[in-house]
């Protein structure tokens, strides 16, 4: 087993990995850019090394620098988390070259699965069902236009280098193609430094079902069942759960076998995820493979009792999987909500500012993987996800009620969050009954319920506002003064007031 590992990431996932390492008595090294100096993840490690970059993000993407820190700090292995360098084959290779163990798959597997075209070819050969679409990357508008026409609308444009919804566009009709294609190219160039696009037929409102697989270096492959990640906004997952409400035992077994075949086809080692889309007739198609730990891995952990982050470290240190497929049991129902610093009342615009107060829910069946604490600053440099709230219930109904309870006890002051929106989804009858697909937000969710939620408490709010005004404002600001009696100077809030008038 390793003595010390470096976590090449930030935020909640860095904390998550450090917790796992500590339980294995492995020391951890954090790396941080100056803007993150006070963030909890830095201080969750045993050692902290400062890294530099033209932008904060660039620092976390600097392969050379991170490898050097790993060597200087005496770390024997690097865990990349998700995002950043986690699916970068060059990084995985650079680790090998430097004699450092990369906690994840081999560069060849990352390379092939990271390339949508090659991945489709490989999957097709391995007998994994795929969605009709282009075989080659495209940058030329005219050519793309022709292909889209041939496939028939609606079509989906995807960054060929990408993942996680970045650079992805749905084009429903021919006249929107040019704008969509250019937007997808721009976003994908920004996010991945590559503007080639991949076009495929769009399956209208499928379910997003993904399978967690795990493999050791001794040729043992196990799947840990599915996660339903169908609740998405702009192709970004928001709520995930396991098990899915639509899979029966037989379908789970069949999809599991396909997932394992997909992993075997690329010689996969460590934890990975095979994403499928499932149509109304329960046909499933390979979407992509994520060659890393997923944001939503905790729902699988909760119903299987397996600690994926720990297993990753054990596998990388050469251990065999400690369980067989037959020994994997699923128990209860788990739901995860991603808590974002986004304003659901203003088109989900990212919200920045200082966390002035934080109280996390607790109690039975509640787990929080968080990257924030009181006093820390939420800036524009990184993804606006603050934390993940994960509940476990004996069944789906208990999990739903527990999530509702936990969300309404989650207090974050200082930035606006999507919590009211998540609460509204938990209360939505179609979601509660389990009838939902990836079109839920667009077709079933009525944003008016958010306004109604606000209206419910308006009289109470008026009472508090008036009382608070008398208590704070009136006393401190006699009529003659110039306003120096103001009680706080939260600039971002002031600008938001002005913005909305």
């Amino acid at each position, binding site marked *: 087993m390793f003595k010390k590992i470096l976590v090449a990431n930030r935020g909640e996932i860095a904390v998550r990995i450090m917790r796992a390492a500590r339980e294995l008595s492995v020391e951890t090294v954090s790396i941080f850019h100056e803007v993150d100096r006070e963030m909890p993840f830095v201080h969750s490690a045993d050692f902290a090394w400062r890294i530099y970059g033209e932008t904060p993000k660039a620092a976390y993407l600097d392969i050379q620098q991170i490898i050097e820190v790993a060597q200087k700090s005496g770390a024997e292995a690097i865990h990349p988390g998700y995002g950043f360098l986690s699916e970068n084959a060059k990084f995985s290779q650079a680790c090998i070259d430097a004699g450092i163990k990369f906690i994840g798959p081999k560069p060849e597997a990352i390379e092939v699965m990271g390339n949508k075209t090659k991945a489709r070819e490989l999957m097709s050969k391995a007998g994994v069902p795929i969605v009709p679409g282009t075989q080659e990357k495209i940058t030329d508008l005219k050519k793309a236009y022709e292909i889209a026409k041939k496939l028939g609308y609606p079509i989906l444009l995807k960054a060929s280098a990408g993942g996680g919804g*970045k650079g992805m566009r749905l084009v429903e009709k021919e006249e929107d193609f040019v704008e969509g294609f250019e*937007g997808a190219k*721009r*976003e994908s160039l*920004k996010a991945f430094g590559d503007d080639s696009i991949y076009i495929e037929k769009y399956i209208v409102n499928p379910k997003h079902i993904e399978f967690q697989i795990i493999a050791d270096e001794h040729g043992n492959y196990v799947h840990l069942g599915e996660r339903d990640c169908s609740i998405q906004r*702009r192709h970004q997952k928001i709520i995930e759960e396991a098990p899915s409400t639509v899979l029966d035992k037989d379908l789970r077994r069949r999809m599991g076998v396909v997932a394992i075949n997909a992993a075997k086809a690329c010689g996969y080692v460590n934890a990975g995820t095979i994403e499928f889309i499932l149509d109304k007739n329960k046909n499933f198609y390979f979407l992509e493979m994520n060659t890393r730990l997923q944001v939503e891995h905790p729902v699988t952990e909760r119903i299987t009792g397996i600690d994926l982050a720990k297993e990753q470290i054990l596998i990388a240190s050469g251990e065999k999987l400690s369980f067989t497929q037959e020994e994997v049991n699923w128990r209860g129902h788990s739901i995860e909500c991603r808590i974002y610093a986004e*304003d659901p*009342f203003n*088109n989900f*615009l*990212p*919200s*920045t500012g200082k966390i*002035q*107060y934080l109280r996390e829910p607790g109690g039975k069946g509640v787990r929080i993987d968080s990257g924030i604490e009181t006093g820390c600053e939420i800036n*524009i*440099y990184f*993804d*606006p996800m603050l934390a993940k709230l994960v509940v476990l219930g004996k069944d789906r109904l208990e999990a739903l009620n527990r999530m509702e309870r936990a969300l*309404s006890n*989650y207090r*974050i*002051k*200082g930035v*606006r969050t999507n*919590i*009211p929106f998540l*609460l509204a989804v938990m209360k939505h009858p179609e979601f509660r009954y389990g009838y939902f697909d990836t079109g839920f937000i667009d077709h079933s969710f009525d944003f008016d319920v958010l306004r109604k*939620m*606000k209206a419910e*408490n*308006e*009289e*109470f*709010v*008026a*009472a*508090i*506002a*008036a*009382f*608070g*005004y*008398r*208590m*704070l*404002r009136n006393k401190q600001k006699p009529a003659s003064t110039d306003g120096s009696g*103001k*009680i*706080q100077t*939260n600039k971002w*809030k*002031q*600008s*938001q*007031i*002005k*913005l*909305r*008038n």
Partner: protein
Amino acid sequence: MEPLILKIDDKEFTAEFVRDDHVSVWINGKKFQIELLKKYSENIFSFAVDQKLMQVQLDFDNDDNLLLSLDGLTYEISITNETKRMLAKFIHTDNGTGAGGNFKLKAPMPGMIVKILVDVGTEVSKGDKLVIIEAMKMENSLTSPVAGIIKSLNAKEGTAVEKGVLLMEIENH
């Protein structure tokens, strides 16, 4: 104390107090009893309103505007009274949305202007896309909240903007 007029997200409420009663407030004639149970910090409090517990953040600015956040919901409240309202009628203050005035589109967050979809003189309807701004790796479209004509354009494609920076002015129809 003169009754207060509260405007909460475009709805009006009157709030009245009675001399020597420090625990009651009448909202539109309905009585509420309030007690401050706990002060967490300068601006975060726990109140019991008719015994119902409510944890709120209260942020006042200089103009008696209040941002009140409760259970993750943020209410924008302006507080005034009849006297102040009368005064305001005489002293015209341009807050950006006077009748027939101009709407000022400001950057809602720091970010990069990736695309501007209008020019000076373009006629826009409510809901039309005006600017695509990128922040936190995502592109966000800013749409027009009013119908009108683009009067001035301060934003440039490919440039970074701070939050609150004026991007364009739209002359209301």
